[in-house]
């Protein structure tokens, strides 16, 4: 995983609450066996009009948003399915952070494994950001702060382990593989327990 220390970008705003992973990447695009290339299908059903043409109103179709790295979205972003294709599609679009008043558990976990920073801020601040698309934010991963357009710096919660992984580009599988000895010990203990009733 690529290290992520800072994100400075204008915001793209999707004001809807409860944006589920079926909106982020509809299921009919999940037949792929690859991680890459899903950005072109991100928000497919919101991006296209019924005749298949691009919806000019949809924020990700607007020229000023090309290259934006921060998405600000309504509460409970990423609810629904566990598909990791959702953060894959968003990072393929170029996003590196999602800001919302609440982010669903599995999406948050998946995002962190793909260098996409889930940032939960107070409703009042998120509401301000939802009202002003395109403002510039500065996210500092080491300080766990977001600098708002008026210069205020606000803290966001970030698990210390996830923070280290992001800052150092450490992948979690590498960390787990190093725990082989304790896992083996646990397995011996667990197998004895299971053996008691399974034999």
């Amino acid at each position, binding site marked *: 995983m690529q290290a992520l220390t800072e994100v400075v970008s204008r915001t793209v705003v999707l004001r*809807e*609450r*409860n944006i*589920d992973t*079926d*909106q982020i990447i*509809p*299921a*009919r695009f*999940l*037949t*792929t*066996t*690859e*991680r890459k290339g899903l950005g072109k299908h991100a928000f*497919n*059903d919101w991006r296209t009009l*019924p005749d298949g043409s691009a919806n000019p109103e949809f924020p990700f179709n607007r020229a000023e948003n090309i290259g934006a790295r921060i998405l600000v979205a309504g*509460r*409970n972003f990423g*609810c*629904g*399915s*566990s*598909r*990791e294709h959702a953060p894959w599609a968003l990072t393929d679009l170029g996003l590196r952070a999602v800001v919302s008043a*609440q982010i*669903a*558990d*599995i999406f948050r*976990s*998946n995002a962190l*494994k*793909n260098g996409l920073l889930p940032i939960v801020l107070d409703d009042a601040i998120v509401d301000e950001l939802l009202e002003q698309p395109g403002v510039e934010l500065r996210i500092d991963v080491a300080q766990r702060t977001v600098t708002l357009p008026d210069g205020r710096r606000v803290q966001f919660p970030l*698990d*210390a*382990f996830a923070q*280290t992984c992001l800052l150092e580009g450490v992948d*979690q*599988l590498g*960390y*787990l*593989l190093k*725990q*082989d000895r*304790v*896992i083996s010990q*646990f*397995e011996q203990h*667990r197998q004895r327990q299971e053996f*008691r*009733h*399974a*034999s």
Partner: protein
Amino acid sequence: MTSQPKTLFDKLWDAHVVTPETEGAPAILYVDLHLIHEVTSPQAFAELDARGLPVRRPERTKGTLDHSTPTLPANASGQLPYVNDEARAQVDTLRANCARFGVELFDYDSPQRGIVHVMGPEMGLTQPGQTIVCGDSHTATHGAFGALAFGIGTSEVGHVLATQCLLQRKAKTLAITVEGELAPGVSAKDLILHVIGVIGVNGGTGHVIEYRGSAIRSLSMEQRMTVCNMSIEAGARAGLMAPDDVTFDYLRGRPRAPQGEAFEAAVEQWKSLRTDDGATFDSEVRIDARDIQPTVTWGTHPGQVAAISSRIPGSDGTDEAKARDYMGWDPNAAVAGRAVDVVFVGSCTNSRLSDLREAASVLRGRHVHPRVRMLVVPGSEQVKREAEREGIDRIVRAAGAEWREPGCSMCIAMNGDLVGAGQLAVSTSNRNFEGRQGKGARTVLASPATAAACAVAGEITDPRPYLTTQPAPHASAQLETV
């Protein structure tokens, strides 16, 4: 030594902690059973390949084919009608990965293949006290057995394949206690839709739910699975229930459960899997079973529910107005009476034998409304066989509905089983998100009895009159053993 009273979740968690969590690192949690399917596993196996890693405990991983699989049978030359070549390649990829890494796969030629959350329990792979994960958010289904079961992403599928472990922060606990008796004609699906309506689509976020109370204890195992299945629809990490005699009776004799004396020994251990008196939960919600009526969703997430006898909201709140527009409702419209185009009975929520019996009891001797296309999709090969033995397939076909091969089908709608744009589907599945069943499709979630009643009526209707009155006997279709 006095020990602190523990919740069921505490006990399951503690029994699987390899290393406890600290401020700087999550816990390492051991996984007893890992279920995989074709959609969320290929990139995980590719990660193992890229690092030259084996599967650490292949015997703890089981594979099935369910999401991308056609529900129409093979043609005369043996070709399955996949929606596209990519779907076929995805199935072939899982087959190749399981063969290379030594993982057991319940393939098309297996009499046990089925939707992952139907197959695991019916084979007895799912057992109380286990940790169970799958790259699928409806893994909470297995929590009905007193297991800690939850959905994971594909990176985590790779973690489990390579290490049999996951990095996890311990979730909070939420007790949902449902006391009292469900009214006649009110099902487990109505119960869980009502619960999600009460706590909200994000009411369980960050929590593991334990369902408790007399109404929960009186449910059958299949009904309990329907309830736990939809825990994620309230945002919860997992949903679980303490195992009891209903659980043990269900598991006894299942092929992958312990057998004979070993089973009875296991039961003695499993009996300790309950929340201790005096243990506390982070949050608690109490629900009176008598308040629950036949319930459906009206909106575009599973928290937007209404009793069939009621009206949808007329408020101007943006979320509700947007959902109303998408679904094509007028403000304050009556739920009952809305015309229906498609009815789907199936999915990991409601495709087990008791669900199909419930639908068949409504369809028996009746006919699907001419406006309606109805699909009935059993959850597994075993469910299909048992249903056919009882003549349920004949009742379904005689009513004018389609009887399909097992799979996820129209719930996730990635195999070509689609609802058309603008059509209204009454579906026994678990998600009514925009476009879930096809671009522009409108989904109303309901119980199997409600879905079947809607198919007959051609409109949204209360199933209870159909459950209490029987039409004249139907010559071509008789239930033999129901």
